[in-house]
């Protein structure tokens, strides 16, 4: 055999999608219900008492942050479970003994997880339209941004899944780090609304750059310049790919 094992990649990709399909109802219903709840609480109850943020009605303003919040957690959960479960049940022996390269395995697992979180993002986007008019200034950029976010957070989740040695470790990063950072990263407010020194401190939160960039694709403006957001997401992709190749090269927590 030479070249790329496309059949192998597609086998893993389809296996993972089949796993998602088994939980399709909850998988898509949960984001729809969550979005609806956020709209009732933030959009109607609180939003009606709030003025516009940066010239955008508050209910529309929170849509990009809402999509990002769900996509961050979905990507990490799906990708980390995808590789953690075979490790946990022992079925990973088959992947390790198969003529599949590290890059092929990552492409298949991350590709499948990213497909799912991208669909979740699009479902939330569609649900939001039921409640509020959401203008999209740069539709192509918006989709591209979602795609890159899905891929980079799935790569991050994949790393987490290899690193984790228990279910607790698997949950702790998304719940204790990513979730608070997203809330504090301006998912539901503009960081310009914060007083100093909090505004400057917040700039050390990497999530700020991602949410701001995504919001830019909707409203044409964000908390930071779009170039910073682009640079940040590129850096995140590179770092994750670097870490994963190191993990496979050394066999870190995969091979004894």
């Amino acid at each position, binding site marked *: 055999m030479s070249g790329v094992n496309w*059949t192998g990649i597609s086998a893993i990709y*389809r296996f993972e999608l089949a796993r998602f399909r088994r939980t399709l109802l909850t998988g898509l219903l949960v984001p729809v219900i969550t979005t609806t709840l956020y709209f009732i609480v933030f959009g109607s109850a609180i939003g009606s008492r709030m003025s516009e943020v940066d010239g955008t009605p508050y209910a529309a303003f929170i849509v990009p942050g809402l999509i990002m919040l769900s996509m961050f957690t979905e990507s990490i959960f799906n990708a980390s479970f995808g590789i953690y479960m075979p490790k946990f049940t022992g079925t990973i022996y088959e992947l390790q*003994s198969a003529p*599949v*390269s590290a890059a092929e395995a990552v492409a298949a697992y991350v590709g499948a997880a990213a497909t799912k979180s991208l669909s979740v993002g699009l479902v939330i986007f569609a649900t939001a339209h039921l409640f509020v008019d959401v203008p999209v200034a740069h539709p192509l950029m918006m989709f591209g941004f979602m795609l890159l976010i899905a891929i980079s957070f799935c790569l991050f989740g994949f790393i987490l899944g290899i690193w984790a040695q228990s279910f607790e470790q698997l949950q702790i990063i998304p719940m204790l780090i990513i979730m608070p950072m997203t809330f504090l990263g301006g998912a539901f407010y503009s960081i310009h609304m914060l007083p100093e020194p909090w505004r400057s401190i917040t700039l050390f939160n990497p999530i700020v750059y991602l949410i701001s960039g995504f919001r830019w694709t909707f409203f044409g403006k964000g908390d930071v310049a779009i170039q910073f957001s682009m640079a940040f997401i590129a850096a995140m992709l590179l770092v994750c790919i670097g870490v994963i190749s190191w993990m496979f090269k050394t066999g870190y927590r995969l*091979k004894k």
Partner: protein
Amino acid sequence: MASILTVAGLTKVYASGFQALKRVDLSIEEGEIFALLGPNGAGKTTLISIICGLVNPSGGSVTVAGGDIIRDYRDTRSAIGLVPQELATDQFEKVIDTVRFSRGLFGKRRDDALVEKILRDLSLWDKKDNRIRELSGGMKRRVMIAKALSHEPRLLFLDEPTAGVDVELRRDMWKLIGALRQTGVTIVLTTHYIEEAEEMADRVGVINRGELLLVEEKRALMKKLGKKTLTVTLAEPIAQLPAELAGSAVALKDGGHAIEYVFDTHADRTGISGLLRQIGDLGIAYKDLDTRQSSLEDIFVSLVHQEKAA
């Protein structure tokens, strides 16, 4: 015959410092059934895991079907099927899907006719649409074998294939392995059950504490190390062995009803005729004679014990 697997100077030291393999050399011929015998922790699974790509070697080299397992991993892994010792299956998958998945994973085009044949041969066809979690342990083991065969390997590793399965399934497994050999597949199996090696293997290797103690044709091994036991069943029981007969190889057994004599089948003089003449001279009447070849198990136990003593 050509060698399909060559292991040279293979060494493994785990991160804990435990040395699982000590410069193991081994060559497996295409088409043979090779049984690797050894007690728990002898290094059987480590050896297989390195060959299949699950564990990194610390030193030495492994060649499968002419390719190096690290440099040419795509070729070598395509040639290998692995059935590990632990039952590990995707509980929520259907039997037929999981077998198709394995074939795809190994880069082979979908082939429904072949998958059907494999499932039928393993008596799994009736269960093809069952979820794996609905199957019994023995059936799950068969699913794992079906997965390992799905990409038509030339070399099949069965790590403790009959550990924890009932007698009937074990018989089935033997039949299956016999049938596989007819198709030209080379089989390497590890086992605790000596009778399994005795029943099926062409050659036997004995491994203990990371060292391959010996590799030999099964028949030659049994001949070479084989002792025979002559049992003389007496007409009337005797209270004690007459002094004339006393020797390290002779013993009174069965409450004085039998005399047992252990001899080497390859010695110039086995001493049987001398013993029988002496018994006759002493006026002891006997009604039956029986000789028994020692089993692989006896050979194995004595080998492992010898090494412990050394």
